[in-house]
């Protein structure tokens, strides 16, 4: 996926101007948010679970090299192949090589954000392969030639009618408003692909180092098709997505469906320990695990390591008042919402996503929603303090801050400054004590809101100490 994260502000304006889109996004984000709240209301020990899950993830990041080696060793011992990719390009190249070596023509895919990140589909297509997304949402997105707008619900921005039209145009299905009928059409289309596919490519929700298990948490059953029907299964994971033990996994697997979709439990939790073993009746003949770095180890060694705790549940998107209004596409890359505003600049480079850290009112709803308690507002504010971001603010901004600082450090200047501001803004004072049509930085505010003029007498001028 080609990043256009630079264009957040114009892209957000487009989303805000489109009433249908705006309604779809809002409803799409609110639904899982409210459902998650319902699940929590009937779940005891929410905070205990969150603490356990966070501790499991923190422990995993602390011992990451060791855990990844154990994962590799365990998988190798059961006949899997493990490949390491330093960046997106290497990941795509390695995966394509594996496909070409098996003379693959048709590749079916399960949901995988990391392959969206590397742009794998386009890479394989350029190498002459047919690539079919099999997660229903991703399938729709692929048919439409779009990109996902949500980590969990990629098609959140599309209405049922738009999907019906798409299915009729691309699959020859008569126009229908029955979702079940559309699903049946997708299913029969995909079933044939599953049976013919040479390679299945899946993501990995989490890997468990102690036994070398790859865990997939899914709802649609396509994940099992992708990982068992084709002769070769290639699993792709970001290198941070490992935990030490099954005990560590337990709390996360309990949390994930609750916060992601508002389900108490997901339909499937698939655990893959290797290719088909001797004497086993089914499963792929080969399993290849591709572990992708692509900027993650640099994050691990930075002030933003906490962002790697993320389990890609999408809860921060649903909770975010900014995401609720502009949707995922405005963020311009694979990861939208608060987590995207943190990791897109880190993965792409700060200059490629200069506005994303500002795309938050710092309300903290994301922090409350995060199942592993990532302090997203703290990281957004930290990113704003990075030198390239401050330069982006411009020299006027820096100068303004210097003036502000000088005034705030000198109470007498502050007092005088208040009176001076009141006097100097007089031409703009409205009858109701508000400022109208003030030029400069206030104009962006004044487009939609009034601004009060400084009070005739400040609090410190009115204050007389306690009554006697």
């Amino acid at each position, binding site marked *: 996926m080609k990043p256009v994260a630079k264009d957040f502000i114009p892209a*957000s*304006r487009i989303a*805000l101007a489109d009433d249908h889109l705006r309604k779809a996004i809002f409803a799409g984000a609110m639904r899982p948010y409210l459902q998650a709240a319902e699940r929590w209301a009937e779940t005891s020990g929410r905070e205990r679970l969150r603490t356990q899950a966070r501790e499991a993830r923190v422990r995993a990041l602390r011992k990451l090299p060791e855990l990844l080696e154990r994962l590799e060793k365990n998988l190798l011992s059961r006949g899997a192949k493990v490949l390491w990719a330093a960046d997106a390009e290497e990941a795509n190249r390695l995966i394509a090589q594996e496909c070409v070596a098996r003379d693959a023509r048709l590749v079916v895919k399960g949901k995988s954000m990391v392959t969206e990140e590397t742009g794998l589909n386009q890479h394989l297509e350029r190498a002459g392969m047919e690539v079919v997304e099999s997660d229903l949402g991703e399938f729709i997105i692929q048919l439409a030639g779009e990109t996902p707008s949500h980590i969990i619900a990629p098609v959140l921005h599309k209405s049922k009618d738009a999907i019906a039209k798409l299915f009729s145009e691309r699959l020859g299905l008569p126009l229908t408003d029955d979702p079940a009928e559309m699903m049946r059409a997708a299913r029969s289309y995909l079933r044939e692909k599953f049976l013919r596919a040479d390679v299945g490519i899946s993501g990995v929700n989490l890997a468990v180092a102690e036994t070398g298990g790859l865990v997939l948490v899914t709802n649609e059953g396509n994940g099992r098709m992708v990982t068992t029907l084709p002769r070769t299964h290639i699993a792709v994971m970001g290198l941070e997505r490992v935990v030490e033990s099954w005990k560590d996994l337990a709390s996360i697997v309990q949390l994930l469906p609750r916060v992601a979709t508002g389900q108490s439990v997901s339909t499937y939790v698939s655990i893959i320990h290797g290719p088909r073993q001797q004497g086993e009746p089914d499963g792929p003949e080969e399993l290849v695990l591709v572990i992708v770095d692509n900027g993650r180890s640099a994050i691990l060694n930075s002030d933003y390591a906490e962002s790697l705790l993320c389990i890609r549940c999408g809860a921060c998107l649903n909770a975010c*008042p*900014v995401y609720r*209004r*502009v949707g995922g596409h405005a963020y311009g890359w694979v990861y939208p919402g608060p987590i995207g505003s943190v990791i897109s600049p880190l993965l792409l480079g700060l200059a490629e996503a200069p*506005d994303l850290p*500002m*795309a*938050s*009112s*710092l*309300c*903290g*709803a994301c*922090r*409350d929603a995060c199942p592993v308690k990532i302090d997203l507002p703290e990281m957004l504010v930290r*990113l*704003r*303090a*990075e030198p390239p*971001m*401050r330069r982006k*603010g411009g020299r006027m*901004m*820096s100068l303004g*801050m*210097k003036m*502000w*600082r000088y*005034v*705030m*450090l000198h*109470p007498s200047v*502050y007092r005088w400054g*208040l009176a001076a501001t009141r006097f100097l803004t007089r031409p703009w004072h409205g009858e*109701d004590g*508000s400022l109208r049509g003030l030029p400069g*930085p*206030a104009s*962006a*505010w004044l*487009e*939609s*809101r*009034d*601004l*009060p003029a*400084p*009070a005739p007498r*400040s*609090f*410190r*001028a*009115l*204050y007389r*100490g*306690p*009554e006697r």
Partner: protein
Amino acid sequence: MPEKPVAIFATCLVDSLYPDIGMGMVRVLDRLGIPHTLPPAQTCCGQPAFNAGFRDDARAVGRAFVRAFRDCEAIVAPSGSCVAYVRSHLPHLLDGTPEHGEALGLAERTWEFSEYVVDVLHKPDLGARLESPLRVALHNGCHAMRFGGIERQPRILLENVRGLTLADFERSEECCGLGGLFSVKMPQISTAMMEDKIAALLASGVDVVLTGDAGCLMHLNGGLARAGHSLRVRHYAELLGEAL
């Protein structure tokens, strides 16, 4: 009861734009017989610069804040946002400066107005009374609620006001869209959030909206006035001061 007078941290918005909020708070403290003082060297806690990414400037102003209040036994402010900042961010920001230790101490002695009255003074019922019944929506500021844990205290104070009824409104926990620099860097998104908040407040049919932060108040009143609505947001300190 505190031995030394409680220090009022007016906050820059209240001091410069909304002095009546500060006076309301003073009235409540007076009625409770709590001696107070206004340390003259205070200006701002530095949060605006911190949130905008200007940490050096925030640090300099934060150090001055600590020095202005260093001798105070308790500090009370009519803003959950400023209090949350002083508690959870300032000590960390001042790590490595001579004021770090004092900042840690201040963090434990700084209270938001309703929190101070309810949790420190243990005066959940101020005996306040309204002359005519009033239906009220309480908008909790995000920083107060999520970073300061201030949600229960204003509700308790308001529930004990005779003649006041609290009304629910839709998505009351959602941000009003201010967010400091966010509101001028991304005015369209900020405005969309504000308009939704205003619509929910209007739909609740209340007579007045109360909040504990002058920031939210400035934002929402700015939007309400611009759109020509008569509904207004007030700070609960001001209303409580009047109802005593």
